């Protein structure tokens, strides 16, 4: 066989063509996360629609809570995340009118880890567009306790079971490969029937802040409403009290079976961390959950358990004045809440670890230190002293300083 003639050029061309074909990579680049923390996490999302039926106008705020740390009034959980759906996006052309909708808009909560969740929210309404003073302009601010909850006129909402009206527990699951699965089509409803009737139970304390547990077995605090205007606008006419009737059977609940019915609001006296500001002890990240590491106290039963404690003092409202207001002449509960001008709080020299709220564990001694006082309404609205209106904290935050809000219970 005669060999075909070949020039150096043809040989070279053949060589480079051959090399090119071999060198040509057709594979897609490999997925290889860098040191960026976000690339090394696996998360999903919760998304769906808001449905609003209300004449209120304002941004919709949707909070994501862990089902293991329910928000007030069921628990003391704080939101893990939240999103804002601007009023213009939600109400569109109806932003300036008083129509009640329904209005819908998409929402999404990004980078949600696998787990069980609860969605709550409210319309941060501008009530001044409908009613004269007293009214609220949109004033939600998530970064301060004194501005982070709904006020009178805001419209509450959440993801609820349409049949029962109960809050839905949403679960972000994972697939066989461990990838979280997105939760889509979630509906969050807001309606006029859930309009918040009153402002938060802002209060001030009349008594001194000292509580010497070596010489006194209890401490009495008298709370009276505190009103603010401006950046923090709270004008509670009094304290909105009612008997607790969780199962709505018409019979007041008595959870501790002491013969005295339970009341709304509730009062919580919790130990503060020994750090500047108003941070609960063992909740330094302020997520409402007890930190993994922290201070542990000896329990009456079993001593120290090696876990950080959520120390609260045994406290409650003085029942007599409330019962007088809440029971009719026949001693039957009144169907509606009533306002009272002041509350009397009885605090005992007894500390418990409330890490598990359902089974509080008494401690052997009352840990000395600073304690906060929190009022919790049936609407989930709360107020706590001390708070960011403490003049020391208020100025750097751009908030008006109010001396009464610096109150702290000093336990010795």
């Amino acid at each position, binding site marked *: 066989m005669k060999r075909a003639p070949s020039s*150096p*050029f043809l*040989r*070279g*061309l053949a*060589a*480079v063509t*051959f*090399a*090119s074909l*071999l*060198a*040509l*990579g*057709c594979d*897609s*680049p*490999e*997925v*290889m*996360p*860098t*040191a*960026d*923390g*976000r*690339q090394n*996490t696996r*998360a*999903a*999302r919760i*998304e769906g629609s808001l449905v609003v039926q209300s004449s209120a106008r304002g*941004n919709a*705020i949707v909070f994501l809570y862990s089902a293991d740390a329910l928000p007030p009034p069921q628990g003391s959980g704080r939101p893990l*995340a*939240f*999103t*804002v759906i*601007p009023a213009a*996006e939600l109400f569109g052309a109806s932003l300036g009118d008083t129509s009640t909708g329904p209005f819908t808009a998409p*929402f*999404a*909560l*990004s*980078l*949600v880890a696998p787990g069980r969740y609860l969605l709550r929210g409210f319309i941060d309404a501008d009530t001044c567009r409908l009613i004269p003073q007293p009214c609220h302009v*949109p004033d939600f*601010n*998530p*970064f*301060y306790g004194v501005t982070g909850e709904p006020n009178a006129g805001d419209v509450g909402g959440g993801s609820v079971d349409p049949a029962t009206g109960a809050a839905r527990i949403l679960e972000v699951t994972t697939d066989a490969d461990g*990838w*979280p699965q*997105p939760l889509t089509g979630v509906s969050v409803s807001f309606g006029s029937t859930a309009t918040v009737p009153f402002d938060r139970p802002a209060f001030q304390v009349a008594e001194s802040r000292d509580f010497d547990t070596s010489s006194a077995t209890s401490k009495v605090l008298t709370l009276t409403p505190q009103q603010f205007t401006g*950046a923090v606008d709270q004008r509670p006419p009094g304290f909105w009290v009612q008997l607790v009737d969780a199962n709505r059977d018409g019979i007041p609940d008595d959870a501790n079976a002491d013969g005295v019915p339970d009341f709304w609001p509730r009062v919580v006296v919790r130990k503060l961390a020994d750090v500047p500001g108003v941070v609960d002890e063992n909740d330094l990240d302020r*997520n409402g959950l007890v930190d993994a590491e922290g201070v542990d106290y000896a329990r009456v039963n079993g001593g120290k358990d090696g876990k950080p404690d959520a120390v609260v003092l045994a406290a409650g409202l003085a029942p007599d004045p409330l019962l007088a207001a809440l029971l009719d002449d026949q001693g039957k509960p009144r169907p509606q809440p009533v306002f009272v001008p002041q509350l009397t709080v009885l605090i005992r020299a007894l500390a418990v670890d409330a890490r598990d709220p359902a089974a509080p564990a008494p401690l052997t001694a009352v840990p000395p230190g600073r304690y906060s006082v929190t009022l919790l309404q049936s609407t989930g609205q709360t107020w706590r002293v001390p708070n960011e209106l403490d003049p020391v904290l208020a100025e*750097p*935050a*751009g*908030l008006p300083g109010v001396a009464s809000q610096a109150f702290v219970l000093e336990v010795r």
Partner: protein
Amino acid sequence: MTIPTVFRRGALLALCLCATEALADARLEARRHFRNGMNLIEQKQFDEGIAELEEAYKIKPHPSVLYNIARAYQDAGRLPEALDAFKRYLAANPPDAASVQAQVARLEATQQAASAEAPPPGSTPGTTGTPGSNLPMPPPPPTSIQAQQQLAMLMERLEKAVNRAESLTANASPQPQASANAPASNTANSSDSAQQGDTSGDQGFVPYEERVVTASRRAQSSLEAPNATTVITSEDIRLSGATTLPELLRRVPGADVMALGVGSANVSLRGFNQRLSNKVLVLVDGRTEYQDFIGLTVWAGLPIGLEEIDRIEVIRGPGSALYGANAMLGVINIITQAPGTGRRARFSAMAGGGNTVQGSFVSHGQNGALRYRASAAYRQEDKWTRDYASGRPDFALRDEDPDLGTRGARGNLSTVYTFSDDRSVGLSGGVHRYNTEIYPLGLLRNYSMDALGAYAKGDVELGAVKLKAFWNHLSGTAGPQYEAIGQRSLVTNIASNVFNGEALYARGFELAGEHQVNIGVEGRLKRVAFGYLDGNLREEFHAAAFIQDEWRIVQPLRLVVSYRVDRHPLLDKGQPGIAQSPRLSAVFQPMEGHAFRASVATAFREPTFLESYTRLPVPVPGVNGVSVLTTGNRQLRPERLNALELGWRGESPRLGLDWDVALYQNTVKDLIGLSPVQRLPAGETYDSGSGSYLVGRSLFTNENAIYTARGAEAGINLSPIDGLGIKASAAYQHVSSDLPEEGQCGPCSQAPGFRLFGGITYRTRKDLEFGVDAAFTSSTTWVEREPAATDPTRVDLLANNLPAYTVVNARVGYDVAKDFASVALMGSQLGGGHAEHPFGNRIERRVFATLTVTP
């Protein structure tokens, strides 16, 4: 070993075996032959000496070599060969053509006379020279006084040339020069010639000396440069196998090259590298490629390709005294081929790993006094790695092609019309449509940019005066490649237009020594429309003036005094203010081939538009209702550098060796960075524009810390035998600060302590070329901002360790058909997988093959 690897290695071997014929650093080799030849001629070994000169000329043609060949033949009494060489010299149209022509006429007359009369017995050719001189023998005594004066002048010039006379400067004309015109006119021509893209790199009077134009804005021997200077020639580029500009810069001592993606690299000099590296001024033919709106050189967006580059000059050290803002740590001047100096057509195609496809075309031509260079190219390459997979439930990929790392199509046209030796008009323009990655600052991560870049430039040369105007345009969209689903998008639009005009004047004169003065004024209008800016459209006008005097006090000592003042609209606490940049350098050349330099200089970097005007709420990951507000600051001071440098540059032509050693201390203050997140007043936390609450504000501020960088750099180029080229460099640096804790000093831990580079190229005489180089970078620790894992609304500074890495590239080239076609196989990143920044791609090996045809 995998099958593809086997085949790839087989292909490489196949290329080697196919080779039939092939040299390294042509300049060094040619210089070595030239010097050896001149020495032999001095020793009256004319044949051997002339052969060496011919070899030098063969390796790298230089008209002065022809002149010296002609003189050698003349001294040897071989007039026909001398006449032939003189005529070859005259064919290059040298400026001294008239006098050489006269000499030719005399020689021809002598030859005729000699042919009519036999030489006297016992006469020995070539014995009329001056004993001990380094020069060829002088011609026979002229018959007229005028001719005698002309020859005396010519001798003086040539003597200066060979001994590297200080006053000689290159002519801006692309035509090769062998002897001098009047020094004054030459000086004017050479001033700022770098900005016109001339090819004066080897076109000085002294054959094969390395010449630079960036250090003093005029052509000069690199020995005379007041700064540490590194030159990367087109030959270096070709032999390196590098496919990108940043890859080439790894060979520069002191250069920090940090590739985060195939199209995204950050380059700094002597430390202070970062995402959005902003302290080195990058020029293309004197036109800035620094993107003022953000403070970045978009390397993948440069409108030129490697195939169009004549050489790259890197000034390591402050350059603000001549170039103003942003030439803080150095200047990288990319000089393209002068129009009309190359082949009429050159096609090149490349393909390889990562779906890499590249094609380019470059054409040079001339029609009378009009010369042009036209080019067009396309390139695409996939990323090395991807950060996120497709179809994730949490992150969405924004790009249509998430695999694509870079893609672009570009075209350029550069023309020059020469009216006379020192009068010309140049017009050039180009456009580049491209897509690439960039890595912004702070909490922002991997961005992609889909952009259109364009420029137009005009140069007018009127003797000692040069006028230049250019327009730079960049428009398109930019945004994160990956965004959390449901989170507000940060994709935005950019439109940047920069209009620049400048005038330069150069003149030499005698006053207590020889002076060479350069004076320049400049005005620049910047109009930037950028979605991240407060107010979207911003406009600034900058003005500057500079003067430089190079004063040769005595023969071996020169002082270079430079001063520049820049007017910036915000530098005086938000009002127009000035920045002054003085520099004083001394260059001492006690013996031929050695230069010692000392320099004291200041430099600055002006605040970018991003740093001055930004208002960008950056979504907090996982909390869609919250943003961190990043804001600009109009009260910023410029970043400042005070530098001390000592250097020694030397050469040993007979060994084919060049070296440069530099010691420096840079004191840097007022670095601009993002402040820690500061809480906003309660009444200012809702941002209606983004529909989110602002957890706080991080604004650009001047740091209080003072950083001190000390270092040493050394580099050698060696070409000991024909075909073999060796380049090696080493750099050590240490950055410290006055911060109380070392861990707080990001620039300290982010600067690699050691960098080493070594490269060998070998060209056989059988058309085969080999090249391999390796660059080592020591480990670093990068301090970067990240949202806290437990509370994403809190921003933490996290330290990320980056191990040491070595980048290895190799190339095998083969001339398939001499002066017609060549092929090459190139291996990139052969050192194995590594990352050059904690957030950068993991860089992987790739192999490319190229075919170049020059019909």
